[in-house]
């Protein structure tokens, strides 16, 4: 166990090292910091002196070590645009993104497990076919398009009149097909509740929760079909296995077999895939936040790119890298703990 932990930790450090080198290379190659600091009128000799003073003429390795030393202390310099430490900017935007991801994860977990299990237990029922059909369509719809359609339906509203409005049933059907709209679709609302530090939450009041609904559904929509299909496929395979057949032969109730015996082994691969998909979810927050103008890290990152705010871009990369590394390491550890067939020492069997 200890050996496995150390190995994973070493791997995580290696990945962070690679990310930091890439980030530093980006910082080093994009733009001239002197240009950003001083005006046009400053003569070349002063610029050269400033460059020497800031250590910009030092060899790559020396500069990288200085960057790494600051990075370990979470010091990435000042954002050009906000004119405050980049870590402060990130901390201000982080809670919004985390709440969005949390809400989406909640939707994914509570929906994908029952639907996946159901369509594996009853693969031929019309409802399962419907779920599978919808899920392949869901995979093919880009997340920003789902978001736009949701805004059109629930925020702006649609009114269609394919049936004659004059007859009673016609106007009833038209009303059924049309939607009122009115769901908030932009930003987080004004009714946020302060929790601690920079963390203002959308979860505390009913009104602010409505702001979270559409973004969370959009973000969940991209992962949900994937997980339904994965859980279904795994469950189908587990149900074929000998131990399930044996349990059936022993006369254990089907409910117990499905939800106790089979589900446990189904969830193993789901954990691994889930860990990797958290990374994808963070990437998709960029798209979701752009559509809904959700003031999280993703929107901040895009704005930083527009403004060439290089310190902020670098900090975002490092923070996101750190999130990925932590989640991946945790998932590996949990997987090792849950699945006794994994040799935690990493020795070949």
């Amino acid at each position, binding site marked *: 166990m200890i050996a496995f932990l150390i190995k994973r930790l070493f791997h995580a450090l290696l990945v962070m090292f690679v990310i930091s080198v890439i980030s530093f290379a980006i910082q080093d190659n994009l733009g001239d910091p002197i240009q950003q600091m001083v005006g046009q009128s400053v003569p070349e000799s002063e610029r050269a002196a400033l460059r020497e003073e800031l250590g910009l003429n030092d060899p790559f390795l020396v500069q990288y070590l200085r960057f790494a030393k600051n990075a370990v202390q979470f010091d990435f310099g000042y954002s050009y645009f906000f004119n405050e430490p980049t870590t402060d900017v990130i901390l201000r935007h982080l809670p919004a993104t985390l709440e969005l991801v949390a809400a989406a994860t909640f939707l994914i977990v509570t929906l994908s497990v029952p639907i996946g299990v159901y369509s594996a237990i009853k693969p031929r029922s019309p409802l399962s076919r419907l779920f599978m059909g919808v899920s392949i369509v869901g995979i093919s*719809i880009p997340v920003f398009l789902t978001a736009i359609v949701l805004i059109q339906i629930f925020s702006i509203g649609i009114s269609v009149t394919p049936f004659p409005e004059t007859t009673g049933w016609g106007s009833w059907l038209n009303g059924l097909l049309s939607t009122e709209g009115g769901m908030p679709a932009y930003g987080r609302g004004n009714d946020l509740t302060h929790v601690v530090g920079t963390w203002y939450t959308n979860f505390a009041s009913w009104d602010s929760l409505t702001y979270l609904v559409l973004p969370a559904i959009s973000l969940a929509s991209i992962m949900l079909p994937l997980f339904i299909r994965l859980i279904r496929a795994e469950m189908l395979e587990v149900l074929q296995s000998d131990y399930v057949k044996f349990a059936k032969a022993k006369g254990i109730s089907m409910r117990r077999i499905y939800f106790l015996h089979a589900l446990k082994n189904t969830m193993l691969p789901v954990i691994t895939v889930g860990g990797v998909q958290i990374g994808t979810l963070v990437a998709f927050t960029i798209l979701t936040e752009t559509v809904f103008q959700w003031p999280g890290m993703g929107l901040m990152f895009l704005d930083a790119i527009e403004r060439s705010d290089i310190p902020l871009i670098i900090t975002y990369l490092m923070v996101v890298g750190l999130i990925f590394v932590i989640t991946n390491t945790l998932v590996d550890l949990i997987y090792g703990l849950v699945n006794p067939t994994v040799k935690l020492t990493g020795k070949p069997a």
Partner: protein
Amino acid sequence: MTTITIPVPSRWARFRDSYLLYSFKRDLIAQVCLLVFVAMVAAAILAPWLAPMNPYDLAQIDILSSELPPFWIEGSDPLYLLGTDAQGRDLLSTILYGARVSLIIGFGAVILQALIGVSFGLLAGYLGGRVDAFLMRLADIQLSFSTLMVAIIVGAVFKATFGGETFSEYAVILLVLIIGLAEWPQYARTVRASVLAERSKEYVDAARVMGFRAKRIMFRHILPNTLSPIFVISTVQVANAIISEAALSFLGLGMPETQPSLGSLIKSGFDYIQSGSWWITLIPGTVLVVLVLVINLLGDWLRDVMNPRLYKG
């Protein structure tokens, strides 16, 4: 003594008797999907002849006829079948040209990632050892970041390095590069897994004993035997590349509005959705979804036919 020569069936005859064609004939969904896909590709290729207008030609654009609705809504102009966008461009023409750009980038990116991924996968699987460890670790790191994230980061760096102007000018090539670089690990992993299975077979040993060089064994002997999984993931990857391109364009890291792809059409229309002009964004969106959906369904079918246990999900 008479020698009996068994005629070698021609390629066409082999294809005619293949299981692939047999199952295709029995699968209605696959047939419809192929038909729709071929029709869309043909329409995209023939865009300059089919489109009523040239959206790249500024002289044909009339700002006065902007935001006209499609033909089934009141107030439309019969000249513009699907309506016009905010700049007064005919939506049908822009979609035809846009689909063309999306498809070029989608296929280009897949060819690039296949080149990188297949070479790396062959090297990693055949050589093993340090090369394998290094390449697969690289793939792991990149995949844990998710391909879209890598594409966004690379896109951002490219845009910051080249500047907006140059980026727009070479957007097609740069997007192929970005998506190709972001998604090669999928190929590398699949190919490596099949190479590992093939490497221990006798024909590879035989080739090695005969003194062939590693390069020849990898590309002439092993590669043909790993083609069917490559083929299967290629379909899914084309769909992914088209979605990635659309996502990048939607974020403003892709095709400029003067030379729109389906993604940048959706982006440019999104600004007008609040004013009620939903068609500018939702019609190109529908086209994108249909295109990606038929490719995904074809990929599903192909996977079932070629190797039902290749991957899950």
